[in-house]
């Protein structure tokens, strides 16, 4: 029932990986991750599920914050990856409204092996390179990004991301090369990547304040 | 002859491959059958399986035939093929006490429980070339086998038995310290070096796995060096066994299923245990015994013995002798890697060379200019020459 039949583990995984790789190499560049009909649990954005299907296998572990059993069944069935707790998981699937302590616990690697820091995929409502329509219920962040992969600066607009999560990310990434690497996936299949090298300046729409992280 | 921009590379390769095939068959002798190689080149195939890290005698024979007898090339083909085959199971741990022994000796004791079984070995054949083999016929083979079987009296055959281990004798008498009793035994995880790059210091499981896959000549040289004095390990053969062991896997319902047998060679080398640095920990004041362990596919005693020597040597990590230097032993004894990199020198390196040439020519220029400046009669000390001059 939850085993995907339409997903092609050879070609869909490759196509989506190439988009992710270019997205990670050019932080803030938005890509659509779609093109195949899948049925992930409702607590997981489709693009996040596609990231899991593309990258996970039996050699890595994941942690999911919402409906952990549903997501664990789904990922285990389709990738043979195994669930683990947040401090040891290689991949964390979180939501934009999650408590930042989940990020606090994620592993950041070691000086000799910094690549063992976790990859964190956060489901948000919307990701855009254009300003998002504002309303009272929206929590819109404007992110100014600089760093490797970005020519001068890149601006993205995010809806549905608790800024406290970005605060936690800042703390995790304060001692480069240790750190975690972020992917934001929205409800309409858009993804952006924020590797630990990206410097993020956050403008809070509601409070009209700027925070420079990292 | 045209410059390399002339598009001839593909044609050259095609001709080269055709030539390889030509050399293999040009004498128009009867094509060798895989079965003949398996039967009559047993030891070459055992070496190929060990260094190829792939137990598949038919494929070993195929590979040996394909590369005109170059055992290392054949092992390379096995490795490359192995990398394409999906992994279905991990076997249960094999206890070699249950081995169907074909050969089993100990140098540590004259008589051992179960007895010394000399088995099939070239050790006591005199290495005198046997010219009778030049005219060996099928009838001669049959005649020999008939005589051989006639010599086996039915009454001498006993039930198949297994043999206890010599090291169990030592253990029972409290003479042996296990590896996990070494001071600082190190990482005891079981890792698979074919699934992740080795990290140093490497767990013992990784070291043994790499030794099991290593090229026989490479580890032989290093084992020999340790015995001769470039190292601390001069062991006694506690037990050397060659025989067949059963392989079992757990099926999806958790039942332990027999899937076949493999031939292995096992060496348990008795050495002295690592001495503790401080009194009161580990071996203390008694020079207990410890085992250097070797195990490889097929019948390859040199390899198993040298594995045992190097297993023990690497447990006493030191950069004083190559055999005790983990990185030295493990990085340089994989035959496929060593053969590839040494031979890669045949690839064109003219761009790299040109870059270096430029440096050398500039250095010569600088020297000339310094000399010219020094020869000036002004008495002013020559300035250090700046680099950006055309």
């Amino acid at each position, binding site marked *: 029932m939850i085993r995907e039949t339409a997903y092609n583990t*050879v*070609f869909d*995984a*490759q196509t989506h*990986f*190439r988009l992710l*790789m*270019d997205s*990670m190499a*050019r932080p803030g560049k938005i890509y659509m991750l779609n093109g195949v009909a899948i049925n992930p649990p409702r607590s997981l954005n489709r693009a996040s599920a596609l990231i899991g299907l*593309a*990258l*996970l296998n039996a050699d*890595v572990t994941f942690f999911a914050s919402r409906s952990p059993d549903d997501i664990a069944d789904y990922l285990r069935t389709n990738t043979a990856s195994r669930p683990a707790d947040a401090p040891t998981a290689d991949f964390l699937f979180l939501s934009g409204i999650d408590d930042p302590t989940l990020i606090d616990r994620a592993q950041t690697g*070691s*000086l*000799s092996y*910094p*690549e063992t820091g976790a*990859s964190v995929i956060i489901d948000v409502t919307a990701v855009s390179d254009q300003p998002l329509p504002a309303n009272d219920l929206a929590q819109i962040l404007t992110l100014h990004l600089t760093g*490797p*992969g970005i*020519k001068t600066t890149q601006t993205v607009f995010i809806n549905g991301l608790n800024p406290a999560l970005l605060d936690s990310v800042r703390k995790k990434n304060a001692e480069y*090369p240790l*750190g975690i690497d972020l992917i934001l996936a929205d409800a309409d299949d858009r993804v952006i990547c924020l590797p*630990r*090298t990206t410097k993020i300046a956050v403008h809070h729409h509601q409070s009209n304040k700027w925070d420079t992280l990292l | 002859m045209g410059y*390399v*921009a*002339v*598009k001839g*590379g593909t044609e050259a*390769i095609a001709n080269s491959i055709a030539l390889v095939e030509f050399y293999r068959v040009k004498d128009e002798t009867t094509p060798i059958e895989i079965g003949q190689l398996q039967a009559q080149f047993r030891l070459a195939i055992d070496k190929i399986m060990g260094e190829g890290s792939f137990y598949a005698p038919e494929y070993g024979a195929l590979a040996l035939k394909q590369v005109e007898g170059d055992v290392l090339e054949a092992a*390379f083909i096995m490795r*490359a093929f*192995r*990398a*394409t*085959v999906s992994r279905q199971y991990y076997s249960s741990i094999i206890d070699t006490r249950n081995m169907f022994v074909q050969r089993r000796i100990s140098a540590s004791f004259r008589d051992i429980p179960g007895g010394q079984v000399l088995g099939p070995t070239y050790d006591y054949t005199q290495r005198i070339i046997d010219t009778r083999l030049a005219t060996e016929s099928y009838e001669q083979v049959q005649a020999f086998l008939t005589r051989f079987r006639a010599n086996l009296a039915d009454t001498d055959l006993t039930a198949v038995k297994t043999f206890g281990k010599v090291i169990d004798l030592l253990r029972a008498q409290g003479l042996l310290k296990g590896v996990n009793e070494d001071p600082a035994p190190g990482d005891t995880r079981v890792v698979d070096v074919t*699934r*992740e790059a080795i990290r*140093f*210091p490497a767990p013992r499981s990784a070291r043994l796995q790499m030794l099991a896959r290593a090229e026989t000549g490479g580890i032989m040289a290093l084992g020999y060096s340790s015995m001769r004095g470039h190292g601390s390990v001069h062991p006694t053969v506690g037990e050397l066994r060659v025989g067949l062991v059963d392989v079992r896997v757990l099926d999806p319902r958790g039942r332990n299923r027999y899937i076949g047998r493999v031939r292995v060679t096992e060496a348990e080398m008795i050495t002295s245990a690592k001495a503790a640095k401080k009194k009161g920990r580990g071996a203390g004041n008694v020079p207990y015994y410890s085992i250097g362990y070797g195990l490889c596919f097929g019948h390859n005693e040199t390899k198993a013995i040298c594995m045992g020597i190097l297993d023990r040597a690497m447990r006493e990590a030191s950069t004083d002798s190559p055999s005790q230097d983990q*990185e030295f032993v493990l*990085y340089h004894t994989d035959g*496929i890697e060593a053969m*590839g*990199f040494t031979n*890669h020198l045949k690839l064109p*390196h003219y*761009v*790299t060379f*040109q*870059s*270096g040439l430029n*440096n050398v020519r*500039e*250095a010569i220029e600088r*020297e000339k200019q310094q000399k010219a400046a020094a020869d000036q009669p002004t008495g002013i000390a020559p300035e250090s020459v700046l*680099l950006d001059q055309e």
Partner: protein
Amino acid sequence: MSPFQKFSHQFNFAFIDENTKREIRRKLLKAICIPGYQVPYSSPEMPIARGWGTGGLHVTLAIIGKTDTVKVIDQGSDASVNACNLRDFIQRVTNCATTFDTHAASLIQTRHRIPEEVLTNNQILIFQVPQPEPLRSVERYETKTREMHGEADYAKMWVALYEAYVRFGGIMRGADYPVMVNGRYIMAPSPIPRWDVPNLHQSECLFLFGAGREKRLYAVPPHTDVEPLEFDDVRFSIERFGDIRCSLTGKAGAFMDELYDDMGGVRHVINDSDFLDKLLTDIPRPAQWQNPYLQEKLNQTL
């Protein structure tokens, strides 16, 4: 993936099994997140010998898709025997399009050169790397070099460069000139000539590096600082070819090969075979990289 059959010849798309592809892809993503840092990977055996490009192949085959067009060069040439062998293998296991035209390729696998023609944001350059560890010449042990990178303790390297200067009057590094990436990691750019090194800095394209035998992957994203190691008063420079021009095209401003004929006479020819081919036709000179070292050279000679 088809089930195993004895003596059958079925291989997976792009030869490598899907599990290994996933591992390589995950590691490439991490490599991009930590520019210049060497990520260990499983590096399974390939039908090509170690030291002959297995790392480059691992990267190419792990990322390649049905719509890619692949170019393979060795010492700047598409036609050299090893480039032909690799390109043939890639084509056979993927059925992809191949090309000699630098501009038309989406993936370029290279041994020891960056093409003269500038690469765009739609292109990925994959380097074959013999020795990924830039500190190996000053420290033979991996345990120590890993620590040195971890702590950014690069004193031994700087001392070695300085000692070369004291002895020979120059830094004396040729190909594989050490660089500092993103201000944090010293990296081996693979044995490309110094001519090519400045092209790694703030590029439009993605650079991926595969060292198969040593089992390391690393990356330089676009728009990333890559600075050759130098002193304030002893600077990095690219190779000088002086007044030398290509004997086939009469042009300068590209890396040259030095050729000797049967009489011992010497001539030079542009090394990059596709760039040479293009200069031999009527099309305008292809755009080259915008690095200041090359630009100075071009201003002098064009």
